[in-house]
């Protein structure tokens, strides 16, 4: 044993020298390999160049595909390689970060980020990886003014130097999306104007409605994740201010709101994005539920896909509190060798207001032929010439609700840590509502989780 220890000690000393030495010149080999990778890429230049696209849904990759379809000469030069990793398990960010940091031929050229973590890539720890739209060859200021892009989209997408590095294509002001038949059965009407007065304004009114629904055997929402998004993005302060954790009173009140929902059986106690939550969209859950909180994308990309036989039985109205939720921003990579190509795609997605532009097709559901899903988009100019009527909503024009809702969208209560902190918070809220721990303990443990896992000060 003694021999072993002395051997290890000698080895340790030797290698600590090597370790220290290697630190000084360690960047050199990485560069050579990156360079080597590039030469192999350009050596095969008779073949198409590869554009790496990273996203957390298939939305952006499908857009890129469409762009190639519309621009054959572009498609002749480039081929797309997509990587899609869902954010459900928090897996997207670590993978994307490592791909960006590793660089080389496999690094993303174009990547998408969601509201819950976009700030990290535009203003936070990973902002050095984002190319400015100017560098991508986009005349960004003039284009933004022309397209009348929603201000919050620009605020979020601007880096600390005041340059735009990311823009969204959606407008994500929120509404309450409900089932017409259930509203009619409970209140005798399914008129959005009437229903918005039943479920709001304010949470007190919301719970009154929940009680009335309960009497009829319905739930008001599927799980506590539904009101959470309304709470989260109607709060005044973000989770972190000046490197310190802040629990906004409105977010703290979510503990009580969630508890009340659970204790009174106002919902099916599902978790958002889990199987049972989707099941409630087509009445496959324990009891039927009135509706969901969400922006326009929620209707087309989530509910419509999972609605089954309830198609056409839906409507949107003003929510009890104004909020916004989500949205996807598109960024180009600063290290990309194909900035011009990336810029062309990004400009088409975020700033092109023509009828051949992405946003027009996106708003009018013509991206993949007529009759497709519609969404509210970032460009005011496009919105003004678009039609939000949906058969899924029995002909209601959803833009009537969503355009005013966009005033609640702002980037002021976001942080780069939202995805992680939200996960901790929701975890604690769930433990509290399930009776696993007291309210105080849940708050304490939440603070502890943030302190232990993130570089954030907790008082």
């Amino acid at each position, binding site marked *: 044993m003694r021999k072993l220890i002395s051997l290890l000690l000698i080895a340790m000393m030797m*290698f600590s020298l090597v370790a*220290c030495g290697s630190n000084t010149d360690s960047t050199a080999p990485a560069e050579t390999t990156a360079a080597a990778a590039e030469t192999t890429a350009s050596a095969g230049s008779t073949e198409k160049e590869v554009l790496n696209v990273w996203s957390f849904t298939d939305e952006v990759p499908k857009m890129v595909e469409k762009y190639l379809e519309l621009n054959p000469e572009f498609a002749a030069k480039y081929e797309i390689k997509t990587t899609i990793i869902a954010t459900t398990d928090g897996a997207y960010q670590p993978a994307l970060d490592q791909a*960006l940091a590793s660089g080389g031929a496999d690094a993303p050229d174009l990547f998408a980020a969601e509201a819950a973590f976009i700030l990290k890539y535009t203003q936070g720890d990973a902002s050095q990886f984002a190319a400015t739209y100017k560098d991508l060859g986009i005349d960004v200021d003039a284009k933004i003014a022309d397209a009348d892009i929603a201000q919050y989209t620009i605020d979020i997408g601007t880096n600390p130097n005041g340059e735009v590095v990311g823009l969204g294509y959606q407008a994500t002001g929120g509404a309450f999306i409900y089932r017409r038949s259930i509203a009619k059965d409970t209140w005798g009407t399914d008129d959005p104007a009437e229903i918005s007065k039943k479920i709001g304004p304010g949470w007190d009114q919301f719970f009154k409605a929940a009680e009335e629904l309960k009497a009829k055997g319905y739930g008001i929402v599927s799980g506590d994740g539904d009101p959470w998004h309304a709470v989260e993005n109607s709060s005044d302060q973000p989770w972190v201010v000046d490197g310190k954790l802040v629990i906004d009173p409105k977010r703290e009140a979510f503990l009580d709101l969630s508890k009340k929902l659970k204790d009174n059986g106002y919902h099916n106690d599902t978790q958002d994005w889990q199987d049972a939550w989707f099941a409630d969209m087509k009445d496959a*859950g*324990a009891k039927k539920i009135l509706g969901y909180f969400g922006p326009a994308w929620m209707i087309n990309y989530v509910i419509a896909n999972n609605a089954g036989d309830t198609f056409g039985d839906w409507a949107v109205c003003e929510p009890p509190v104004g909020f916004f939720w989500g949205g996807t921003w598109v960024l180009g990579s600063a290290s990309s060798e194909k900035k011009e190509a990336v810029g062309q795609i990004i400009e088409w997605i975020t700033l092109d207001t023509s009828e051949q532009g992405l946003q027009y097709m996106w708003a009018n559901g013509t991206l993949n032929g007529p009759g497709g899903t519609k969404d509210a988009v970032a460009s005011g100019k496009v919105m003004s010439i678009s039609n939000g009527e949906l058969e899924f909503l029995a002909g209601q024009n959803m833009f009537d609700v969503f355009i005013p809702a966009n005033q609640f969208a702002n980037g002021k209560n976001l942080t780069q*840590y939202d995805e992680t902190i939200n996960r901790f918070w929701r975890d*604690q809220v769930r433990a509290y509502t399930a009776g696993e721990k007291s309210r105080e303990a849940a708050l304490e443990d939440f603070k502890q989780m943030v302190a232990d896992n993130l570089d954030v000060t907790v008082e």
Partner: protein
Amino acid sequence: MKRRKNISYAKYGYIFSLPFILAFLIFSLYPILYTAVLGFTDYKGLAATSWQFLDEPFKNFELILNNKSFRQALVNTFMIWTMNFIPQILMALLLTAWFTSRRNKLRGKGFFKVLFYLPNIITAASIAILFYALFSYPVGPVNSLLLKLGIVDEPIYFLVSKMSARGIVAFIQFWMWYGYTMLILTSGVLGINPEIFEAAEIDGTNGIQTFFYITLPNIKTILLYVLITSMIGGLNMFDIPQLFMQGGPDNSTLTTSVFIYNQAFSGSYLYNRAAAASMIMFVIIAVFSAALFFLMRDKSEIQIRKEAKAAEKARKLANKAQGVI
């Protein structure tokens, strides 16, 4: 003639072990030392390119040791390991006793062995996700089963309760490993000299006595081997807790490996703290291993010593032979 051979052959010992030594130095020792060094630095943040030693060298270690989540992770790791290992070893022993019983020969042993070992070969990632789906709430196969059998009136939210989440992870570990343990113990028993059992039978011991007084003492080293490998595996548990609930709910299935992964590769990229946590784990494992190694020592140590003696003897003999010639 003979001497030349002796000299020339020894070098093959070095040559043949060279690949191992190189791979070990490059891929094991260097990273371990590098990790150790990082634990004393300010190296953090995504794609950080340089680091400096901290003014207070043990700052990271202090932070980690005072980190409640890390302590919780340590407690969890031991708790989950114990909850899995005790039933696992008991079940494996019971099955071993049955399968090696000389009085009551069971049929279909081979068939059962194949099935019991089955969970061990399936990708842990698949198993974690499968069990997550099985235990989902409010609708999921296990809840359906319990409702159907009338055991419960309403679905149970398994994955929100700390103890049941830990229990499920421990159960998965048990389920994956008891077959392996059983196979190893069985083969150990089969390796015992049958004469010992025959003698016992003549003395009139019953099956239970035989098991406790003859079988168990004779497989002591194998039991220790199982204990050590299981402990090292248990202290490094990652796949199941990470994929099952990402260490949740409420940190209840957070193991130290998941903690280290989270520190280093998600959130704030605190490589330095993760390195410090790794080193703390290293020390813990080293202490445990040393203790168990000490217990296991008798067999291999004696063997080595014996060999050394034999080698010495051989050399003396060879010298003598040379002297004679």
